[in-house]
């Protein structure tokens, strides 16, 4: 079964890439746009450190590392779950009916339909730069790297949960707009270390819109600044959140099947 879904995902990714590449102007523009966006924030950070030695106690490479982690996580989320942005239209136009009448998991299919080739291309240099910066920082141990990767995974589960909830809302309430945008807009605060924020804002973005769990926790693990208890917290939070989101999705789907017309 897993094999089927892996094969299917690969195929969907290829199809989606084909779709994107068939729009050449858009493809090039988005690619450039994303690089400019990245480059611009990067330049901002460099400019900050041209005039100051620290931001909230972090040095240049550390701040850059936070920023890169943000990009990696954000891009991975987009890579896997981008179908959510078309989902609202799919439901509105009635095409979702096709999806649920097929022998495939409707949630998987809808979220994975729009894998973004551009993000995939974008990810490669980012990861390379991250490795370089990681070396510059110097003192990472195997434990740090391992913790970083694990916590990124947990963060991705949280992101998945957010997307699932958003999908559930779309299917449940016909008037609901795309709640996923709340997440997308909030993600921007993950570009910088969380220490710049006041305690209340930190709390908000840790537990309610868990950007800090998704981005800052892994980054701190790498920088050897993380209290290990956070690994447990992150795991628990991700599991509960994901479980909760799946429950909501099931309810939403039941409702859809009772009310679609």
């Amino acid at each position, binding site marked *: 079964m897993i094999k089927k879904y892996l094969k299917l995902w690969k*195929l969907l990714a290829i199809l989606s890439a084909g779709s994107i590449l068939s729009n050449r102007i858009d493809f090039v523009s988005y690619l450039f746009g994303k690089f400019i966006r990245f480059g611009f924030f990067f330049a901002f950070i460099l400019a900050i450190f041209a005039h100051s030695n620290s931001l909230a106690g972090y040095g240049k490479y550390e701040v850059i590392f936070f920023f890169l982690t943000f990009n990696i996580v954000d891009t991975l989320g987009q890579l896997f779950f981008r179908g959510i942005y078309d989902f609202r239209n799919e439901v509105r136009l*009635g095409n979702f009916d096709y999806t649920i009448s097929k*022998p495939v998991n409707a949630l998987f299919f809808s979220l994975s339909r729009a894998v973004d080739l551009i993000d995939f291309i974008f990810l490669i240099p980012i990861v390379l730069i991250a490795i370089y910066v990681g070396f510059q920082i110097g003192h990472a141990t195997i434990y740090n790297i391992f913790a970083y990767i694990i916590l990124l995974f947990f963060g991705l589960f949280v992101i998945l949960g957010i997307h699932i909830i958003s999908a559930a809302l779309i299917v449940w309430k016909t008037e609901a707009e795309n709640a996923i945008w709340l997440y997308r807009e909030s993600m921007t605060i993950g570009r910088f270390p969380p220490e710049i924020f006041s305690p209340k804002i930190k709390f908000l973005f840790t537990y309610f819109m868990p950007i800090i769990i998704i981005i800052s926790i892994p980054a701190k693990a790498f920088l050897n600044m993380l209290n290990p208890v956070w690994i447990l917290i992150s795991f628990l939070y991700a599991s509960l959140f994901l479980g909760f989101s799946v429950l909501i999705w099931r309810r939403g789907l039941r409702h859809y099947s009772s009310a679609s017309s």
Partner: protein
Amino acid sequence: MSIIEVKNLSKTYEYYKKQPGLLASIKGLFKREKLFTDAVKNINFTIGEGELVGFLGPNGAGKTTTLKMLSGILYSSGGEALVLGHVPYKREKEYQKQFALVMGQKNQLWWDLPAMESFILNKEIYEIPDAEFKENLDELVELLEIKDILDIQVRKLSLGQRMKCELVAALLHKPKVLFLDEPTIGLDVIAQKNIRDFIKHYNKEKKTTIILTSHYMEDIKELCKRVIIIDRGQILYDGQLDDLIKKYAPYKVLNITFNDNGVKREEIEKFGNVQKYNSYAVALEVDREKVKEAATRILSSNLPVDDILIDEVDIDEVIRKIFRNTHANQPV
């Protein structure tokens, strides 16, 4: 063994009355008026293997709702349905691999890509083995004559071409049951005919059980021996199309044209019910048994007949009459 069994199937939608304006919206947060619509009310029917049944009815009659319940898209509010021995709303994979749904005006094909890519996707979803896929694909492509358009982006195809591709996509996994919801809607006359011919052929060859809903009488007339007429969630008629005509229209129509000075209404009235009248062309309804006699009498009378035709009742007229009757609360 029947392929499709429907017993006392019902579907009720709930919805909330929504008033316009800001004040009403705020009030709506606290108290909303809940209303119910019975889309489908206790319908019963069974369909056997290889049958091609037409669902006929006005908009909102419950045709699409019924199809959706049989596809497992909607849960029923009451009663039960069994297709191929499965309960549709359980959405069992084994069931889903045996039926297909095609909805006119809604596409399952990817817009920016050639149809072929969507076919391959379905291959993976339905787990069709390579050899079988190739065989089915070649056969369908040839039947529908779409070999040349497989590599063109779907959005660049005409509506008719798109529909053909949709059909291929749906039939690749050789479903035993096919639900067609308004497949010819929006198509030009030639495309409609092509699709119809294909469906007819396919049903005959593969013995696929097909339910077809349509607005177009042409579809029904061409394809379906059996029709189920639904109106306002209830079945008004379930039987052979021919019988329908005989039952609801136990008459034939005499279309007579006159020359010289034409005829007066009183002169022609005595031969039958006047359906349409003007002094040079009259349509007359006459009982089936008596129509030849009536024609003979008219011809041998001294009326200035130019031409006379004995026609079957227009089935649209029959259907319209049925709906008119029900809407006027007369027993059917």
